[in-house]
């Protein structure tokens, strides 16, 4: 397309964004990679080569295994709740209900609440074992109150994060649902397909792509959950609610162990890249269409 002059101009116009992003991506990542092979703590200004020691210590630290597990539980748990719940909610909102617009607004609102606020509100006003709403609800049915963040810290965090991400899943599935061809549904109805078989053979396949997108994008974000942990449990009790990012943060900013934190960071990159690979393929395919 177009003329040589335009193409040259186009390159010049793209240059700032491309160069800035390149620097943004390469330089810090290279630095992290470099630090991950050094003995370097902020308490001791002497830096020395460490080989793979940082990786070795980071990985063999019992906190690492538990952080990996916690990360998996957190991501998996939230995905499970949000995808199934989102599917259910999207189908519900898509029905001809009164006040659909308002219902929609109420449902998506949690997504816009900043993570620190969400976590604090849940931690205090809902989950507090003495004054919280949950304690009150439990007392209504005669159950003893639960100290959520002390007794089931990870599950509590999963609940909070799922509350924040349920709207996202709902909104995207709802958008996909609304692009479903009405005529196709009517044709299927004429052909004698019942509600269930229409759902299985028409709706679900139509949504499969949106569901995949929800899963992948949420995964990217959920792998990085941080604020919710910081303001509720601070990773504890012990390391019961420490995930990978939080472990790296602990190493870097609390233990001042730059080398080990960097090794953790590189491991996080590897994990994220595995997910990103699949997400990019889906988005890339869409770009062709």
């Amino acid at each position, binding site marked *: 397309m177009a*003329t040589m002059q335009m193409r040259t101009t186009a390159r010049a116009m793209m240059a700032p964004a491309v160069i800035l992003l390149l620097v943004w991506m390469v330089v810090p990542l290279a630095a992290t990679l470099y630090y991950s092979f050094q003995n370097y703590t902020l308490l001791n200004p002497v830096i020395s080569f460490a080989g793979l020691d940082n990786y070795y210590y980071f990985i063999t630290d019992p906190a690492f295994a538990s952080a990996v597990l916690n990360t998996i539980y957190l991501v998996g748990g939230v995905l499970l709740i949000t995808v199934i719940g989102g599917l259910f909610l999207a189908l519900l909102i898509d029905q001809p209900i009164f006040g659909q617009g308002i219902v929609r607004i109420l449902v998506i609102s949690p997504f816009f609440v900043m993570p620190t606020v969400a976590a604090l509100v849940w931690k205090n006003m809902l989950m507090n074992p003495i004054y919280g709403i949950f304690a009150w609800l439990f007392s209504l049915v005669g159950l003893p109150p639960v100290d959520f963040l002390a007794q089931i810290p990870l599950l509590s965090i999963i609940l909070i994060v799922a509350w924040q991400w349920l709207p996202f899943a709902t909104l995207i599935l709802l958008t996909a649902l609304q692009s479903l061809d009405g005529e196709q549904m009517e044709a299927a109805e004429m052909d004698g397909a019942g509600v269930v078989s229409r759902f299985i053979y028409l709706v679900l396949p139509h949504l499969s792509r949106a569901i995949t997108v929800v899963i992948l994008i949420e995964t990217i974000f959920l792998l990085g959950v941080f604020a919710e942990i910081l303001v509720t449990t601070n990773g504890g009790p012990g390391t019961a609610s420490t995930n990978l990012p939080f472990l790296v943060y602990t190493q870097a900013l609390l233990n001042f162990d730059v080398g080990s934190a960097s090794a953790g960071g590189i491991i996080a990159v590897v994990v994220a890249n595995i997910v990103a690979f699949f997400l990019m393929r889906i988005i890339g395919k869409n770009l062709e269409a």
Partner: protein
Amino acid sequence: MGSIRLNKVSKIFGEMKVIPSIDLEIENGEFVVFVGPSGCGKSTLLRLIAGLEDTSGGRIEIDGKDVTSEAPAKRGLAMVFQSYALYPHMTVRKNIAFPLKMAGEEQAVIDRKVAEAAKVLNLTDYLERKPGQLSGGQRQRVAIGRAIVRQPTAFLFDEPLSNLDAALRVTMRLEISELHQQLGTTMIYVTHDQVEAMTMADKIVVLNRGNVEQVGSPLELYSRPRNLFVAGFIGSPKMNLIEGAEAAKLGAKTIGIRPEHIAVSTTDGAWKGTVGVAEHLGSDTFCHVHTETAGTLTLRTAGDAMLKHGDTIYLTPDDRRIHKFNNEGLAV
């Protein structure tokens, strides 16, 4: 002034030679139509002249000046796009004024020129509307208005009527022709519709696969097509092309005879045949006749001809109007 010269102009997209090499001269004030089937490179050629695409080779001159590597705005040409390409967020007035504003004209001059253009194009009542509130024909006129205010050396039109309905097309065709009479400016007009080409052009350039097949006035192309492609493309209904024994009799590979140059008789003639479909247009009747020796021929007869399906008739071509083509498809 507005004479345009193409000298061995070529265009290659990647691997594809869309325009192998074209030489063409367009005189000042001429109405030139580029006509050819869809995908033959008409738009590409127009965009090369406009400067929206680079040439891969050759020279483009406007009024004797080499503009091959000049930016579009510097060529002094105005273009009317197939989609009209109006600025949807601007009123009609602002749309028409835009080129003047870009040229840094004074507001008073802009106002006067816009008013003039609007008057010529019957847009005065619509100046404060946005393009979205106009009909197809009005949008078309705004696009033309935007082109004429600049007083360009030449106008370029890329299939400007193809988005209009049939009736409006006929009206706009006349309006554009009239505009050309009034302004006397060179116009290059691209279309795939040979009727538009025949009715509007001073000079037609028939394009096929990026090559110029023939250049000439509408009547020249009609009466002396240089080759089979032009013969088949110009004229409606299409010229009948006959191969085999009938052609060999006249010493040609192929002979062509236009539907309107065949005489009909119920008693005798050169070719005997039966009437297949007869299309009654009122003014004319087009008959598709299956002959024994010359294949299926289209015939144009009077509107009141009482031919109907299954009739046996005899056809005789007008000898002076038979076109003969050799093995290479060239007229002899």
